[in-house]
């Protein structure tokens, strides 16, 4: 058995666009009963959807097999030398009522339910080794946020074009490449932000509303990505060769995806395309971060950095979230 055996045929039938979005729910047993018979009737004659459903089932079965509920180790296998239920480096063991009562006797913070225990945040911070490097990171975070904001405002015509002039500390080749990115990459980053924002706003609304509101962003994204692709002829400096490769891989993938996004006929179809757009953008996030790091080292001001590609929980949006989270 190989992964390839589960690849659905490339030619869906005319009705598949209607039924494929429901297959995920069918595989999870979450499809509304009134739709099940209809979907099953289509499945009986459609190899494309049969293969699609099989893929969902394979993924669901793998999920159930490998993402189970792990049992706690029994207390007698707790690492020797560990004292008390919360001892550092002790293997986690199940809590007893006494443990919980003891912890509950400590003063209760007047905090909302969602507040994260301070010790967790402290540990998280300690892990990040935010020493001198952390200070640099913090500056860059602010820089990227500001650059994103400028790009966003600029794309909406709310701010004057803030295209920096020649940057001291950068050679002519880097300046030329950077100028190209500022002109043609920055709108793509802003487009990703709009796609994410629209999805967040209209998730839970009707499929029609979601498509009406969010599909136009796909048109813009496709056009801006296409424009970036045609201008990736500028030779990058050697240190940005990897970034240039990432951009060149990215464009021919995102353009057809955005094109499909503009013609998606179902909400789940557009969701799926947006997910793929996120995936293909991940290397660009790394590339932009690398370039911004170089620029910061070269003394480029905040407004001269490139915007990230904002989408949930990837490295680019992390930078933005980190800035707004105290």
């Amino acid at each position, binding site marked *: 058995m190989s992964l390839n055996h589960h690849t659905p045929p490339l030619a869906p039938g005319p009705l598949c666009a209607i039924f494929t979005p429901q297959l995920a729910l069918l595989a999870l047993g979450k499809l509304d009963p009134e739709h099940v018979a209809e979907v099953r009737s289509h499945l009986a004659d459609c190899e494309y959807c049969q293969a699609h459903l099989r893929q969902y089932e394979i*993924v669901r079965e793998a999920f159930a097999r*490998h993402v189970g509920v792990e049992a706690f180790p029994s207390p007698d296998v707790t690492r020797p030398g560990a004292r008390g239920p919360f001892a550092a480096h002790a293997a986690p063991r199940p809590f007893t009522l006494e443990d*919980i009562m003891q912890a509950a006797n400590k003063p209760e913070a007047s905090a909302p339910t*969602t507040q994260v225990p301070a010790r967790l945040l402290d540990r998280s911070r300690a892990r990040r080794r935010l020493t001198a490097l*952390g200070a640099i990171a913090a500056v860059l975070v602010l820089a990227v946020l500001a650059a994103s904001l400028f790009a966003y405002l600029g794309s909406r015509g709310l701010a004057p074009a803030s295209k920096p002039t020649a940057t001291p500390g950068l050679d002519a080749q880097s300046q030329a490449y950077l100028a190209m990115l500022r002109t043609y990459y920055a709108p793509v980053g802003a487009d990703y932000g709009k796609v994410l924002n629209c999805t967040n706003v209209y998730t839970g609304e009707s499929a029609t509303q979601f498509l009406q509101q969010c599909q136009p962003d796909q048109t813009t994204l496709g056009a801006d990505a296409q424009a970036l692709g045609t201008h990736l002829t500028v030779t990058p400096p050697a240190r940005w060769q990897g970034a240039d490769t990432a951009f060149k891989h990215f464009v021919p993938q995102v353009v057809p995806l955005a094109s499909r996004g503009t013609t998606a006929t179902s*909400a789940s179809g557009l969701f799926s395309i947006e997910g793929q757009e996120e995936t293909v953008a991940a290397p660009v996030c790394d590339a932009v*971060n690398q370039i911004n790091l170089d620029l910061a080292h070269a003394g480029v001001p905040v407004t001269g950095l490139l915007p990230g590609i904002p989408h949930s929980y990837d490295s680019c949006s992390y930078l933005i979230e980190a800035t707004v989270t105290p």
Partner: protein
Amino acid sequence: MGEPSRRAPLSASAFAELLQMTQGSVHAFVRRLLGSSDDAHDVVQDVYVKAWRAAQRGSPPFVCDPIAPDGLDLAGMRRWLFNVAYLQAITLVRHRSVIPWQSLDGTDEEPVALVPIGRRPAEPFEDQVVEGAVLQAALARLKPDDAACLMLDIVHGFTTAEIAQILGIAPDAARKRLSRAMERLRVAYFEQEMTPARERKGAAK
């Protein structure tokens, strides 16, 4: 309008039983979201401390419910625990959001190596270790919200309505999120050609 009659708080022994019954699954859920057993342990502790305090105050669902067959709203308590655990974990994930900046210390600066398009694992796929590794790599590419949704459904067996309550969204939104999460996982699972090698390596840890 008369004051609603107070129901009796959950007894200590009932709470101990609840703790024993549920903490394993809550811990597993949080650990998957946080990627750290130690941090999950702390979150779980905090969740049950909150639950204990709620029980002490006689706040629902930690009360003896005369309507429920066994006097306890076990499903409600389980939803409450997962809801608080989810909110704590997702908040912590967002607080940790600067983790990518670890690369600034120079330990993680090798260029992103793209797996060439069209490359797939050539080995047979029966091996569950491989299947597990592929799934982990695919899961690593899911948003925490999507992963949480799938875990609540596939692993913990909540209904769509319960998932909606736990995640704090409308039932329709929960259904859409489930569908979207499954589609994203399917795509990530079967189309890994574009996964950076570094990312996959990290996810397979």
